[in-house]
């Protein structure tokens, strides 16, 4: 009897292993939740659809014309990565748009304290978001440029160097909304970071034109 | 040694002088004992059995329904809420666990004390223990809400890399109650083996013989076997005795380790144990008095048994009374305002004072009638007191749990608890389940330990009759 049992046992074991496979096998099957209690709750989750709303979108925009209550989070000022007040409501000030009414402004807005820290931040953000196309040197020779249909704009182009033609506000606006074949980055980069990039781009330009000496302002 | 000719009528009058009463009346032979006890299993069940069985089956069904309803709807169908999160559920748990103490106690402690009158009642009492513990287990398991996660209570290494809190009385409860259940099953089964062999040997070949034979393990009654068996049984008794004490002590730790006024008292462990024995013995009598009448077991379960058990009820009832008084005295003497207020609200001003008076009457006053022999010998009185005690012990747990939780330190957090119909039906259902199990036990297993009763007959002494030569 034991012999038969052992034979059956080994066969059954093999069957189980064959059916269930070993750990870590790549599979399309969603993870098996053995005790699924409360694992998936009926609540709004990041970037997930929700059947609760008619349009199926869980992430809601504020109702038009309203200001979210308590939007300014105490202890977490805009400068530290929070979203600046007004950004939600599409404030039309220079800080948020780079424009004074119809015109692009130049220079950093008052909300930004220009300094080493800002430039470092700008450099980091530039390398993440801009360098793939424009290259770390800003010469338009980023990794993507090999696949790009037309030459990518060099940031050392006189057109951009010229503050009259391309004031800081215009740079900011371009980052936010894109230009030509360049897509808008307003959704990926916070307002402050965009200004930081603008500041960094300016110093980058300066370093190229002034013989490699990067200066603040 | 007295002669064995005492009849039931004589026994009714009680012992004359200091002579020892025989444990088996009417000078019954071994064969008579076998026939009578096995007859319960082998013969058709009396009508009364069915009359009792069907309603208990129905009540057990009610229990099943309530539990399904509870799980499918949520624990909210019970009346538990803050501040009384331990309402009837835990009251019933402690109640049933308490009931479950008598069986092993009768078996173990009385065995250790060489109280040979235990032989007639231990089997049924042990069976009762098991069923009561099962009933008890239902409540905490369902009280946690998601009972299928109960395995979290077992120290199994798991992917969460966390372990049970072994400093928690609730976890000790898990260990204590499950150990108690397992050991009680072993104790019960071990005692059953020779009796199963008896039934096996009386069966005609067939499915019954197969089943009884399997569980009798091929018992042959050889003295070389009895030698280990007796030693094992003695050891189990010796192990079970402290176990019984520990289980209800641990249950009492659930309350007493806290700092809650009315719960934190050092006398809780022995007081709970005494209460459990008290309630358990009452339940044994509640079951055995009708059973002995139905199956004609008066010669085996004699008035002496009833009398002794009534005395134990009196004793433990008085111990419980002592604990009540000590609690009150220390609550006053200790000078802790919260503690004395807790008792003030139990007795004088709270919403549950009636419960306290019911408890006190049922547990302390009513058994005092057992000081009188006529009361111990009148089965109706005994039954009435036992019913009182059964109820009283439930009231005691209710008083401890609910009155305390409903009124704690902060008056702003006071609340009132009322059981819902689901809780009430569940509790009722456990009675049905309990009774059903017990009736099935009567139907299929020897209700009295056949071999052991034979062992207490005078002629079972190998020196019986020596002095006459």
């Amino acid at each position, binding site marked *: 009897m034991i012999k038969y049992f052992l034979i059956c046992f080994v066969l059954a074991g093999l069957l189980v292993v064959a059916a269930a496979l070993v750990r870590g096998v790549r599979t399309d099957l969603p993870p098996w939740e053995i005790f699924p209690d409360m694992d998936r709750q009926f609540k709004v989750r990041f970037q997930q659809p929700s059947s609760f709303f008619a349009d199926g979108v869980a992430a809601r925009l504020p109702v038009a014309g309203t200001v979210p209550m308590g939007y300014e989070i105490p202890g977490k000022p805009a400068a530290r990565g929070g979203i600046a007040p007004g950004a939600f409501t599409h404030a039309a000030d220079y800080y948020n748009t780079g424009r004074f009414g119809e015109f692009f402004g130049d220079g950093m807005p008052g909300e930004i304290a220009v300094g080493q820290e800002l430039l470092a931040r700008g450099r980091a953000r530039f390398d993440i978001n801009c360098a793939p196309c424009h290259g770390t040197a800003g010469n338009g020779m980023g990794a993507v440029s090999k696949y790009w249909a037309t030459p990518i704009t060099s940031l050392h182009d006189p057109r951009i160097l010229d503050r009259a033609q391309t004031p800081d506000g215009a740079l900011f606006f371009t980052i936010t909304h894109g230009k030509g074949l360049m897509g808008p980055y307003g959704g990926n980069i916070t307002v402050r970071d965009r200004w930081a990039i603008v500041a960094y781009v300016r110093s980058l330009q300066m370093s190229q034109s002034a013989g490699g000496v990067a200066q603040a302002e | 040694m007295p002669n064995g000719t005492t009849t039931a009528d004589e026994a009714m009058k009680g012992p004359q002088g200091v002579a020892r009463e025989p444990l088996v009346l009417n000078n019954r032979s*071994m064969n008579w004992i*076998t026939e009578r006890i096995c007859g319960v299993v082998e013969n058709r069940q009396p009508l009364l059995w069915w009359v009792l069985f069907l309603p208990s089956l129905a009540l057990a069904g009610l229990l099943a329904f309530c539990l399904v309803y509870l799980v499918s709807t949520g624990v909210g169908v019970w009346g538990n809420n803050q501040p009384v999160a331990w309402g009837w559920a835990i009251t019933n748990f402690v109640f049933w666990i308490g009931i479950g103490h008598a069986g092993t106690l009768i078996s173990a402690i009385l065995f250790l004390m060489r109280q040979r009158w235990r032989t007639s009642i231990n089997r049924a009492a042990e069976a009762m223990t098991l069923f009561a513990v099962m009933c008890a287990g239902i409540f905490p398991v369902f009280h946690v809400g998601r009972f299928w996660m109960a395995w979290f209570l077992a*120290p199994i290494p798991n992917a969460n890399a*966390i*372990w049970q*809190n*072994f*400093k*928690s*009385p609730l*976890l*000790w409860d898990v*260990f*204590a109650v499950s*150990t108690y259940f*397992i*050991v009680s099953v*072993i104790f019960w*089964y*071990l005692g059953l083996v*020779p009796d199963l062999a*008896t039934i096996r040997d*009386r069966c005609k070949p067939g499915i019954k013989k197969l089943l009884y*034979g*399997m569980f009798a*393990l*091929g*018992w*042959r*009654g*050889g*003295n*070389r*076997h*009895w*030698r*280990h*068996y*007796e030693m*094992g049984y003695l*050891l*189990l008794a010796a*192990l*079970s005795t*402290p*176990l019984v004490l*520990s289980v209800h002590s*641990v249950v009492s730790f659930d309350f007493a380790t806290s700092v809650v006024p009315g719960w934190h008292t050092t006398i809780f462990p022995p007081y709970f144990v005494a209460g459990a024995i008290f309630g358990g013995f009452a339940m044994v009598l509640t079951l055995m008095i009708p059973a002995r009448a139905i199956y004609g077991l008066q010669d085996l379960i004699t008035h002496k048994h009833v009398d002794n058990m009534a005395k134990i009820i009196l004793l433990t009832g008085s111990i419980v009374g002592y604990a009540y008084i000590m609690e009150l005295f220390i609550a006053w003497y200790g000078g802790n305002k919260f503690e004395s207020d807790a008792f003030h609200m139990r007795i004088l001003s709270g919403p549950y004072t009636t419960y306290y008076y019911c408890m006190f009457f049922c547990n302390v006053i009513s058994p005092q009638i057992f000081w009188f022999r006529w009361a111990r010998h009148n089965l109706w009185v005994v039954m009435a007191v036992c019913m009182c005690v059964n109820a009283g012990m439930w009231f005691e747990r209710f008083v401890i749990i609910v009155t305390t939780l409903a009124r704690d330190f902060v008056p702003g957090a006071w609340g009132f608890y009322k059981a819902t119909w689901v809780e009430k039906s569940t509790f009722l259902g456990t009675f049905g389940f309990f009774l059903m199990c017990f009736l099935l036990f009567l139907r299929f297993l020897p209700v009295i330990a*056949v*071999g*052991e009763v*034979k*062992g207490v007959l005078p*002629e*079972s*002494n*190998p*020196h*019986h*009759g020596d002095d006459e030569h």
Partner: protein
Amino acid sequence: MNGTATATAKPPFGYLAEFESVRAVYKAAEKVRDAGFKHWDVHSPFPIHGMDEAMGLGRSVLSWLVFFGGATGALTAFILQGFTQIALYPTIVQGKPANLNTIPAFFPVIFELTILFSAFTVLFGIMGLNQLPRLNHPLFSSKNFCRFSDDGFFIVIEGRDSKFSKEKTKAFLEEIGAKEVELVEDDA
């Protein structure tokens, strides 16, 4: 039924002798012991007080087994709790430290597991020492024998005993007061 010689070479299982009462079987057992038999046993519906001495058997070793079983349980519980509460998952709850000073809180479980392991040792110890379950046994083929669980008292002297002899043993059993002596075959 009664002891007819068979053609097989197999020795008989032994003699089954029935006695009248507890007293008779007790006295007989003392005599069998004194006669120097080794493989024999007394079968009775209940344990007979003092029979161990009458048969010349010592104390059961079970108590020692159980002692060690219990000690294992205590150790298991201690290691389980110490390891999980102090090494693996040291959390401070109820203001109790996560070190050995909190040992009083471990006592309840140490106690319970001691009992649990001891109880299992008892159960399996009895089964092991008695070699149970054994559902089939030559004795069960005797019609008389089934009364051992009712009111029969038997002495069995087994065929494998060196002192066993078909004739002498039967005579011996009758001499010491057996009511009835039956030869039980080893039927397989």
